[in-house]
Protein backbone atom coordinates (compact mmCIF):
# COMPACT_ATOMS: atom_id res chain seq x y z
CA UNK A 1 0.00 0.00 0.00
CA UNK A 2 2.66 2.52 1.06
CA UNK A 3 6.07 2.03 -0.42
CA UNK A 4 8.94 4.33 0.48
CA UNK A 5 12.33 3.88 -1.18
CA UNK A 6 15.59 5.70 -0.48
CA UNK A 7 13.90 8.68 1.13
CA UNK A 8 16.31 11.45 2.14
CA UNK A 9 15.69 14.88 3.56
CA UNK A 10 18.20 17.34 4.96
CA UNK A 11 17.56 20.66 6.65
CA UNK A 12 19.89 23.61 6.42
CA UNK A 13 20.57 24.81 9.94
CA UNK A 14 22.88 27.54 11.23
CA UNK A 15 25.29 24.83 12.35
CA UNK A 16 25.30 23.10 8.97
CA UNK A 17 23.35 20.44 7.11
CA UNK A 18 21.12 18.22 9.23
CA UNK A 19 20.28 14.87 7.66
CA UNK A 20 16.80 14.23 9.08
CA UNK A 21 16.03 11.27 6.79
CA UNK A 22 18.84 9.21 5.36
CA UNK A 23 17.90 6.80 2.56
CA UNK A 24 14.88 5.48 4.44
CA UNK A 25 12.98 2.40 3.18
CA UNK A 26 9.59 1.31 4.45
CA UNK A 27 6.68 -0.78 3.20
CA UNK A 28 3.25 -0.73 4.80
CA UNK A 29 0.67 -3.33 3.81
CA UNK A 30 -2.90 -2.39 2.96
CA UNK A 31 -5.14 -2.45 6.01
CA UNK A 32 -2.21 -2.52 8.42
CA UNK A 33 -1.99 -0.33 11.46
CA UNK A 34 1.68 0.35 11.90
CA UNK A 35 3.48 2.24 14.64
CA UNK A 36 6.62 4.16 13.79
CA UNK A 37 8.52 4.58 17.01
CA UNK A 38 11.70 6.47 17.73
CA UNK A 39 13.22 8.90 20.16
CA UNK A 40 12.84 12.63 19.80
CA UNK A 41 14.73 13.95 16.78
CA UNK A 42 14.89 10.56 15.06
CA UNK A 43 13.03 11.93 12.04
CA UNK A 44 9.47 10.69 12.68
CA UNK A 45 7.68 13.93 11.91
CA UNK A 46 9.86 14.56 8.89
CA UNK A 47 8.99 11.10 7.57
CA UNK A 48 5.24 11.47 8.00
CA UNK A 49 5.30 14.99 6.54
CA UNK A 50 7.25 13.73 3.54
CA UNK A 51 4.61 11.09 2.87
CA UNK A 52 2.03 13.71 1.86
CA UNK A 53 4.77 16.12 0.80
CA UNK A 54 4.07 18.81 3.36
CA UNK A 55 7.83 18.53 3.42
CA UNK A 56 9.51 18.17 0.02
CA UNK A 57 11.90 15.16 0.02
CA UNK A 58 15.40 15.64 -1.40
CA UNK A 59 15.68 12.13 -2.79
CA UNK A 60 13.75 8.90 -2.99
CA UNK A 61 10.27 7.81 -3.96
CA UNK A 62 6.97 7.47 -2.15
CA UNK A 63 4.04 5.55 -3.59
CA UNK A 64 0.58 4.96 -2.17
CA UNK A 65 -1.15 2.21 -4.11
CA UNK A 66 -0.43 2.97 -7.75
CA UNK A 67 0.18 6.67 -7.22
CA UNK A 68 3.80 7.77 -7.11
CA UNK A 69 3.46 10.88 -4.97
CA UNK A 70 7.00 12.08 -5.52
CA UNK A 71 6.35 12.57 -9.24
CA UNK A 72 3.18 14.66 -8.96
CA UNK A 73 2.66 18.29 -9.95
CA UNK A 74 1.01 20.69 -7.45
CA UNK A 75 -2.52 20.21 -8.76
CA UNK A 76 -2.19 16.42 -8.92
CA UNK A 77 -0.68 16.43 -5.46
CA UNK A 78 -3.73 18.27 -4.12
CA UNK A 79 -5.95 15.55 -5.58
CA UNK A 80 -3.77 12.80 -4.10
CA UNK A 81 -3.75 14.46 -0.66
CA UNK A 82 -7.53 14.14 -0.52
CA UNK A 83 -7.01 10.40 -0.17
CA UNK A 84 -4.46 10.79 2.64
CA UNK A 85 -5.98 11.85 5.95
CA UNK A 86 -3.77 13.48 8.55
CA UNK A 87 -4.20 13.84 12.30
CA UNK A 88 -2.00 16.23 14.30
CA UNK A 89 -0.63 16.29 17.82
CA UNK A 90 -1.89 19.85 18.36
CA UNK A 91 -5.21 19.01 16.64
CA UNK A 92 -4.92 22.05 14.33
CA UNK A 93 -8.66 22.61 14.29
CA UNK A 94 -10.07 25.82 12.80
CA UNK A 95 -11.20 27.85 15.80
CA UNK A 96 -13.46 30.05 13.75
CA UNK A 97 -15.51 27.13 12.49
CA UNK A 98 -17.97 24.86 14.25
CA UNK A 99 -17.26 21.15 14.57
CA UNK A 100 -19.49 20.58 11.56
CA UNK A 101 -17.60 23.05 9.38
CA UNK A 102 -14.22 21.79 10.58
CA UNK A 103 -15.12 18.30 9.47
CA UNK A 104 -16.73 19.59 6.28
CA UNK A 105 -13.57 21.46 5.27
CA UNK A 106 -11.89 18.72 3.18
CA UNK A 107 -15.15 18.12 1.31
CA UNK A 108 -15.72 21.82 0.67
CA UNK A 109 -12.29 22.30 -0.85
CA UNK A 110 -12.92 19.19 -2.95
CA UNK A 111 -16.04 20.88 -4.30
CA UNK A 112 -18.69 18.50 -2.94
CA UNK A 113 -22.33 19.60 -2.90
CA UNK A 114 -24.16 20.53 0.28
CA UNK A 115 -26.25 17.36 0.58
CA UNK A 116 -23.23 15.08 0.23
CA UNK A 117 -21.32 17.17 2.75
CA UNK A 118 -24.12 16.98 5.33
CA UNK A 119 -24.49 13.25 4.90
CA UNK A 120 -20.76 12.46 5.10
CA UNK A 121 -20.07 14.82 8.00
CA UNK A 122 -22.92 13.36 10.05
CA UNK A 123 -21.70 9.85 9.34
CA UNK A 124 -18.14 10.47 10.50
CA UNK A 125 -19.26 12.49 13.52
CA UNK A 126 -21.39 9.49 14.47
CA UNK A 127 -18.36 7.25 13.96
CA UNK A 128 -16.22 9.30 16.38
CA UNK A 129 -19.16 9.59 18.80
CA UNK A 130 -19.59 13.32 18.48
CA UNK A 131 -22.98 13.32 16.77
CA UNK A 132 -24.32 15.84 19.29
CA UNK A 133 -21.46 18.34 18.98
CA UNK A 134 -21.77 19.56 15.43
CA UNK A 135 -22.68 23.12 16.43
CA UNK A 136 -19.95 23.50 19.07
CA UNK A 137 -16.75 25.45 18.48
CA UNK A 138 -13.37 23.80 19.19
CA UNK A 139 -12.77 26.00 22.25
CA UNK A 140 -15.78 24.37 23.88
CA UNK A 141 -14.39 20.85 23.58
CA UNK A 142 -12.04 18.75 25.72
CA UNK A 143 -8.70 17.56 24.33
CA UNK A 144 -10.07 14.12 23.54
CA UNK A 145 -13.12 15.56 21.81
CA UNK A 146 -10.89 17.89 19.80
CA UNK A 147 -8.84 14.96 18.60
CA UNK A 148 -12.02 13.10 17.67
CA UNK A 149 -12.95 16.06 15.52
CA UNK A 150 -9.44 15.94 14.03
CA UNK A 151 -9.93 12.28 13.23
CA UNK A 152 -13.39 12.85 11.77
CA UNK A 153 -11.99 15.61 9.57
CA UNK A 154 -9.21 13.32 8.37
CA UNK A 155 -11.69 10.55 7.55
CA UNK A 156 -14.47 12.51 5.91
CA UNK A 157 -13.03 12.24 2.41
CA UNK A 158 -12.80 8.43 2.71
CA UNK A 159 -9.01 8.29 2.49
CA UNK A 160 -6.96 5.17 1.79
CA UNK A 161 -4.37 6.10 4.36
CA UNK A 162 -4.52 7.83 7.73
CA UNK A 163 -1.35 9.50 9.01
CA UNK A 164 -1.19 10.36 12.71
CA UNK A 165 1.76 12.32 14.08
CA UNK A 166 1.80 11.87 17.86
CA UNK A 167 -1.99 12.03 17.80
CA UNK A 168 -2.29 11.15 21.48
CA UNK A 169 0.78 12.85 22.92
CA UNK A 170 -1.16 15.90 24.09
CA UNK A 171 -3.78 13.77 25.87
CA UNK A 172 -4.03 12.15 29.31
CA UNK A 173 -3.71 8.34 29.52
CA UNK A 174 -7.45 7.66 29.80
CA UNK A 175 -8.22 9.77 26.74
CA UNK A 176 -5.26 8.26 24.92
CA UNK A 177 -6.76 4.78 25.31
CA UNK A 178 -10.13 5.85 24.02
CA UNK A 179 -8.56 7.53 20.99
CA UNK A 180 -6.38 4.48 20.28
CA UNK A 181 -9.43 2.27 20.56
CA UNK A 182 -11.22 4.52 18.12
CA UNK A 183 -8.32 4.27 15.65
CA UNK A 184 -8.34 0.46 15.88
CA UNK A 185 -12.07 0.49 15.40
CA UNK A 186 -11.81 2.70 12.32
CA UNK A 187 -8.99 0.57 10.94
CA UNK A 188 -11.22 -2.49 11.13
CA UNK A 189 -14.46 -0.91 9.97
CA UNK A 190 -13.06 1.07 7.06
CA UNK A 191 -10.18 -1.24 6.12
CA UNK A 192 -7.99 1.78 6.27
CA UNK A 193 -4.19 1.73 6.37
CA UNK A 194 -3.06 3.65 9.46
CA UNK A 195 0.40 5.03 10.23
CA UNK A 196 0.86 6.04 13.86
CA UNK A 197 3.95 8.07 14.66
CA UNK A 198 4.80 7.84 18.33
CA UNK A 199 7.41 7.84 21.04
CA UNK A 200 5.15 5.97 23.46
CA UNK A 201 5.09 2.21 23.93
CA UNK A 202 1.45 2.44 25.00
CA UNK A 203 0.49 3.36 21.47
CA UNK A 204 2.20 0.29 20.03
CA UNK A 205 0.70 -1.94 22.65
CA UNK A 206 -2.87 -0.73 22.36
CA UNK A 207 -3.26 0.06 18.71
CA UNK A 208 -0.66 -1.42 16.37
CA UNK A 209 -0.16 -4.72 14.56
CA UNK A 210 3.29 -3.91 13.28
CA UNK A 211 6.05 -1.56 14.20
CA UNK A 212 8.94 0.15 12.44
CA UNK A 213 11.75 1.59 14.52
CA UNK A 214 13.35 4.78 13.29
CA UNK A 215 16.81 5.91 14.33
CA UNK A 216 18.79 8.79 12.83
CA UNK A 217 16.59 8.97 9.77
CA UNK A 218 16.63 5.27 8.95
CA UNK A 219 14.26 2.39 9.66
CA UNK A 220 16.43 0.03 11.68
CA UNK A 221 13.90 -2.64 12.55
CA UNK A 222 10.45 -3.76 11.44
CA UNK A 223 8.15 -6.57 12.53
CA UNK A 224 5.16 -7.40 14.67
CA UNK A 225 4.55 -5.62 17.94
CA UNK A 226 5.04 -8.92 19.80
CA UNK A 227 8.45 -9.38 18.25
CA UNK A 228 9.34 -5.82 19.17
CA UNK A 229 8.62 -6.45 22.85
CA UNK A 230 9.98 -10.01 23.00
CA UNK A 231 13.06 -9.81 20.78
CA UNK A 232 14.04 -6.20 20.28
CA UNK A 233 17.00 -5.98 17.92
CA UNK A 234 17.88 -2.36 17.33
CA UNK A 235 19.44 -0.07 19.88
CA UNK A 236 16.35 2.08 20.00
CA UNK A 237 14.01 -0.88 20.45
CA UNK A 238 16.16 -2.27 23.25
CA UNK A 239 16.26 1.06 25.02
CA UNK A 240 12.48 1.31 24.82
CA UNK A 241 11.86 -2.25 25.94
CA UNK A 242 14.54 -2.03 28.60
CA UNK A 243 12.36 0.38 30.52
CA UNK A 244 9.54 -2.16 30.60
CA UNK A 245 11.98 -4.92 31.44
CA UNK A 246 13.37 -2.89 34.30
CA UNK A 247 9.98 -2.68 35.98
CA UNK A 248 9.15 -6.29 35.31
CA UNK A 249 12.33 -7.30 37.13
CA UNK A 250 11.53 -4.93 39.96
CA UNK A 251 8.11 -6.46 40.34
CA UNK A 252 9.65 -9.92 40.22
CA UNK A 253 12.01 -8.94 43.04
CA UNK A 254 9.17 -7.56 45.15
CA UNK A 255 6.61 -10.30 44.61
CA UNK A 256 9.00 -13.21 44.20
CA UNK A 257 8.76 -16.21 41.92
CA UNK A 258 5.48 -16.59 40.17
CA UNK A 259 4.84 -12.95 39.50
CA UNK A 260 3.69 -13.12 35.94
CA UNK A 261 3.26 -10.43 33.40
Amino acid at each position, binding site marked *: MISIRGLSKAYATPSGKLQALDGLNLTVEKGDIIGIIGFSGAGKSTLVRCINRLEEPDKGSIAIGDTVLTGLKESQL*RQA*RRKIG*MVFQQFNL*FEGKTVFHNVAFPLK*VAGCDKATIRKRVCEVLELVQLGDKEKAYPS*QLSGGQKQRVGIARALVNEPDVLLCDEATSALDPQTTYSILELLRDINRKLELTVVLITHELDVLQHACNNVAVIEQGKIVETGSVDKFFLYPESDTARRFVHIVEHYRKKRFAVEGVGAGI
Partner: protein
Amino acid sequence: MRDDLLELLWEGLRQTLYMLVWSSVFAIVLGLFLGITLVVTEKGGVLEARVVNRIVSLAINSVRSLPFIILIVLLLPFARWVVGTSLGPTAAIVSLSIGAAPFLGRIVESALKEVAVGKIEAAKSFGASPFAIIFRVLLPEALPALVRSLTIAVIAIAELTAVAGAIGAGGLGSLAIRFGYQRFREDIMFATVIVIILLVQAIQWTGDSIAKSIDRRRHRTE
Protein backbone atom coordinates in the same frame (compact mmCIF):
# COMPACT_ATOMS: atom_id res chain seq x y z
CA MET B 1 -25.73 82.08 15.66
CA ARG B 2 -26.63 78.71 17.19
CA ASP B 3 -28.23 77.55 13.94
CA ASP B 4 -25.22 78.80 12.12
CA LEU B 5 -22.92 76.73 14.31
CA LEU B 6 -25.02 73.61 13.99
CA GLU B 7 -25.18 73.97 10.26
CA LEU B 8 -21.42 74.36 9.99
CA LEU B 9 -20.86 71.35 12.20
CA TRP B 10 -23.36 69.25 10.31
CA GLU B 11 -21.80 70.16 6.98
CA GLY B 12 -18.31 69.39 8.36
CA LEU B 13 -19.42 66.07 9.82
CA ARG B 14 -21.12 65.12 6.58
CA GLN B 15 -17.97 65.79 4.58
CA THR B 16 -15.78 64.00 7.11
CA LEU B 17 -18.03 60.94 7.07
CA TYR B 18 -18.08 60.98 3.29
CA MET B 19 -14.28 61.02 3.17
CA LEU B 20 -13.95 58.57 6.04
CA VAL B 21 -16.33 55.95 4.69
CA TRP B 22 -15.01 55.88 1.15
CA SER B 23 -11.34 56.19 2.09
CA SER B 24 -11.81 53.38 4.60
CA VAL B 25 -13.50 51.15 2.05
CA PHE B 26 -10.79 51.67 -0.56
CA ALA B 27 -7.93 51.57 1.94
CA ILE B 28 -9.26 48.35 3.51
CA VAL B 29 -9.61 46.68 0.12
CA LEU B 30 -6.10 47.77 -0.87
CA GLY B 31 -4.75 46.93 2.58
CA LEU B 32 -6.24 43.43 2.53
CA PHE B 33 -4.74 42.89 -0.90
CA LEU B 34 -1.31 44.10 0.24
CA GLY B 35 -1.40 42.25 3.56
CA ILE B 36 -2.50 38.97 1.99
CA THR B 37 0.16 39.37 -0.71
CA LEU B 38 2.85 39.92 1.93
CA VAL B 39 1.83 36.86 3.93
CA VAL B 40 1.36 34.38 1.10
CA THR B 41 4.49 35.37 -0.84
CA GLU B 42 6.91 35.28 2.08
CA LYS B 43 9.33 32.40 2.60
CA GLY B 44 7.29 29.27 3.33
CA GLY B 45 4.02 31.00 2.38
CA VAL B 46 1.34 29.23 0.35
CA LEU B 47 2.32 31.16 -2.79
CA GLU B 48 5.97 31.76 -2.02
CA ALA B 49 7.42 34.44 -4.31
CA ARG B 50 10.19 36.24 -2.54
CA VAL B 51 10.87 38.82 -5.25
CA VAL B 52 7.23 39.91 -5.20
CA ASN B 53 7.41 40.01 -1.41
CA ARG B 54 10.49 42.26 -1.46
CA ILE B 55 8.99 44.65 -3.99
CA VAL B 56 5.66 45.00 -2.17
CA SER B 57 7.42 45.42 1.14
CA LEU B 58 9.73 48.08 -0.27
CA ALA B 59 6.82 49.96 -1.87
CA ILE B 60 4.91 49.90 1.43
CA ASN B 61 7.88 51.17 3.39
CA SER B 62 8.54 53.93 0.87
CA VAL B 63 5.00 55.26 1.01
CA ARG B 64 4.90 54.94 4.80
CA SER B 65 8.11 56.90 5.24
CA LEU B 66 6.56 59.99 3.63
CA PRO B 67 4.68 62.38 5.90
CA PHE B 68 1.02 62.33 4.91
CA ILE B 69 0.91 66.00 4.06
CA ILE B 70 3.70 65.56 1.51
CA LEU B 71 2.00 62.47 0.12
CA ILE B 72 -1.19 64.46 -0.50
CA VAL B 73 0.75 67.03 -2.48
CA LEU B 74 2.52 64.31 -4.45
CA LEU B 75 -0.78 62.64 -5.22
CA LEU B 76 -2.56 65.81 -6.38
CA PRO B 77 -1.92 65.18 -10.08
CA PHE B 78 -3.05 61.59 -9.66
CA ALA B 79 -6.22 62.66 -7.86
CA ARG B 80 -6.96 65.12 -10.66
CA TRP B 81 -6.49 62.34 -13.18
CA VAL B 82 -8.78 59.94 -11.27
CA VAL B 83 -11.63 62.22 -10.13
CA GLY B 84 -11.10 65.28 -12.32
CA THR B 85 -10.20 67.66 -9.51
CA SER B 86 -7.46 68.10 -6.94
CA LEU B 87 -9.67 69.99 -4.49
CA GLY B 88 -12.43 69.00 -2.09
CA PRO B 89 -13.40 65.83 -0.27
CA THR B 90 -13.57 63.60 -3.35
CA ALA B 91 -9.98 64.36 -4.32
CA ALA B 92 -8.98 63.77 -0.69
CA ILE B 93 -10.45 60.26 -0.83
CA VAL B 94 -7.86 59.35 -3.45
CA SER B 95 -4.97 60.57 -1.30
CA LEU B 96 -6.42 59.13 1.90
CA SER B 97 -6.97 55.69 0.39
CA ILE B 98 -3.48 55.50 -1.04
CA GLY B 99 -1.90 57.10 2.00
CA ALA B 100 -3.56 54.70 4.45
CA ALA B 101 -3.32 51.50 2.38
CA PRO B 102 0.34 50.69 3.24
CA PHE B 103 -0.37 51.04 6.96
CA LEU B 104 -3.40 48.81 6.55
CA GLY B 105 -1.30 46.35 4.59
CA ARG B 106 1.07 46.02 7.54
CA ILE B 107 -1.62 45.55 10.16
CA VAL B 108 -3.44 43.02 7.99
CA GLU B 109 -0.11 41.24 7.57
CA SER B 110 0.47 41.04 11.30
CA ALA B 111 -3.10 39.88 11.99
CA LEU B 112 -2.79 37.10 9.39
CA LYS B 113 0.58 36.02 10.74
CA GLU B 114 -1.07 35.25 14.07
CA VAL B 115 -2.85 32.31 12.42
CA ALA B 116 -0.96 29.21 13.57
CA VAL B 117 1.05 27.53 10.81
CA GLY B 118 -0.39 24.20 11.93
CA LYS B 119 -3.84 25.20 10.69
CA ILE B 120 -2.46 26.11 7.31
CA GLU B 121 -0.58 22.81 7.15
CA ALA B 122 -3.76 20.97 8.09
CA ALA B 123 -5.59 22.72 5.26
CA LYS B 124 -2.80 21.83 2.84
CA SER B 125 -2.86 18.22 3.97
CA PHE B 126 -6.53 18.00 2.99
CA GLY B 127 -5.75 19.18 -0.53
CA ALA B 128 -6.81 22.82 -0.17
CA SER B 129 -5.58 25.17 -2.90
CA PRO B 130 -3.73 28.39 -1.98
CA PHE B 131 -6.91 30.29 -2.83
CA ALA B 132 -8.98 28.12 -0.49
CA ILE B 133 -6.37 28.49 2.24
CA ILE B 134 -6.53 32.29 2.00
CA PHE B 135 -10.29 32.60 1.96
CA ARG B 136 -11.35 29.61 4.05
CA VAL B 137 -8.59 29.51 6.64
CA LEU B 138 -6.37 32.60 6.87
CA LEU B 139 -9.05 35.30 6.74
CA PRO B 140 -11.75 33.57 8.85
CA GLU B 141 -9.26 32.46 11.51
CA ALA B 142 -7.79 35.97 11.73
CA LEU B 143 -11.20 37.67 11.73
CA PRO B 144 -11.35 38.95 15.33
CA ALA B 145 -7.77 40.25 15.10
CA LEU B 146 -8.54 41.79 11.71
CA VAL B 147 -11.60 43.61 13.03
CA ARG B 148 -9.61 45.03 15.95
CA SER B 149 -6.76 46.15 13.69
CA LEU B 150 -9.08 47.65 11.11
CA THR B 151 -10.79 49.63 13.86
CA ILE B 152 -7.46 51.21 14.73
CA ALA B 153 -6.89 51.90 11.04
CA VAL B 154 -10.28 53.56 10.51
CA ILE B 155 -9.57 55.83 13.48
CA ALA B 156 -6.20 56.67 11.94
CA ILE B 157 -7.98 57.51 8.69
CA ALA B 158 -10.37 59.77 10.62
CA GLU B 159 -7.32 61.63 11.92
CA LEU B 160 -5.92 61.86 8.40
CA THR B 161 -9.17 63.39 7.11
CA ALA B 162 -8.48 66.26 9.49
CA VAL B 163 -5.01 66.67 8.02
CA ALA B 164 -6.48 66.60 4.54
CA GLY B 165 -8.99 69.16 5.73
CA ALA B 166 -6.16 71.52 6.56
CA ILE B 167 -5.26 71.76 2.91
CA GLY B 168 -8.67 72.23 1.43
CA ALA B 169 -10.48 68.93 1.60
CA GLY B 170 -13.28 70.22 3.82
CA GLY B 171 -14.76 68.34 6.75
CA LEU B 172 -14.41 68.82 10.49
CA GLY B 173 -10.64 69.26 10.34
CA SER B 174 -10.95 72.13 7.94
CA LEU B 175 -13.69 73.66 10.09
CA ALA B 176 -11.53 73.60 13.19
CA ILE B 177 -8.65 75.21 11.37
CA ARG B 178 -10.59 77.80 9.37
CA PHE B 179 -12.62 79.06 12.29
CA GLY B 180 -10.69 78.11 15.36
CA TYR B 181 -7.17 78.82 14.20
CA GLN B 182 -7.62 81.50 11.59
CA ARG B 183 -10.64 83.42 12.99
CA PHE B 184 -10.33 82.72 16.71
CA ARG B 185 -13.85 81.30 16.93
CA GLU B 186 -13.16 79.12 19.92
CA ASP B 187 -16.79 78.00 20.25
CA ILE B 188 -16.64 76.41 16.80
CA MET B 189 -13.26 74.91 17.49
CA PHE B 190 -14.49 73.45 20.77
CA ALA B 191 -17.69 72.05 19.25
CA THR B 192 -15.69 70.51 16.42
CA VAL B 193 -13.35 68.79 18.84
CA ILE B 194 -16.33 67.32 20.70
CA VAL B 195 -17.81 65.97 17.48
CA ILE B 196 -14.47 64.44 16.48
CA ILE B 197 -14.10 62.78 19.89
CA LEU B 198 -17.61 61.36 19.63
CA LEU B 199 -16.89 60.11 16.13
CA VAL B 200 -13.72 58.30 17.21
CA GLN B 201 -15.55 56.80 20.20
CA ALA B 202 -18.31 55.56 17.93
CA ILE B 203 -15.82 53.88 15.61
CA GLN B 204 -13.97 52.23 18.49
CA TRP B 205 -17.19 51.07 20.09
CA THR B 206 -18.47 49.60 16.82
CA GLY B 207 -15.21 47.77 16.14
CA ASP B 208 -15.01 46.45 19.69
CA SER B 209 -18.57 45.16 19.66
CA ILE B 210 -18.10 43.37 16.36
CA ALA B 211 -14.86 41.74 17.52
CA LYS B 212 -16.42 40.82 20.85
CA SER B 213 -19.48 39.27 19.29
CA ILE B 214 -17.26 37.11 17.05
CA ASP B 215 -15.15 36.07 20.02
CA ARG B 216 -18.19 35.35 22.13
CA ARG B 217 -19.70 33.15 19.46
CA ARG B 218 -16.45 31.21 19.11
CA HIS B 219 -15.89 30.80 22.83
CA ARG B 220 -19.37 30.68 24.27
CA THR B 221 -19.91 27.99 26.85
CA GLU B 222 -22.90 25.78 26.51
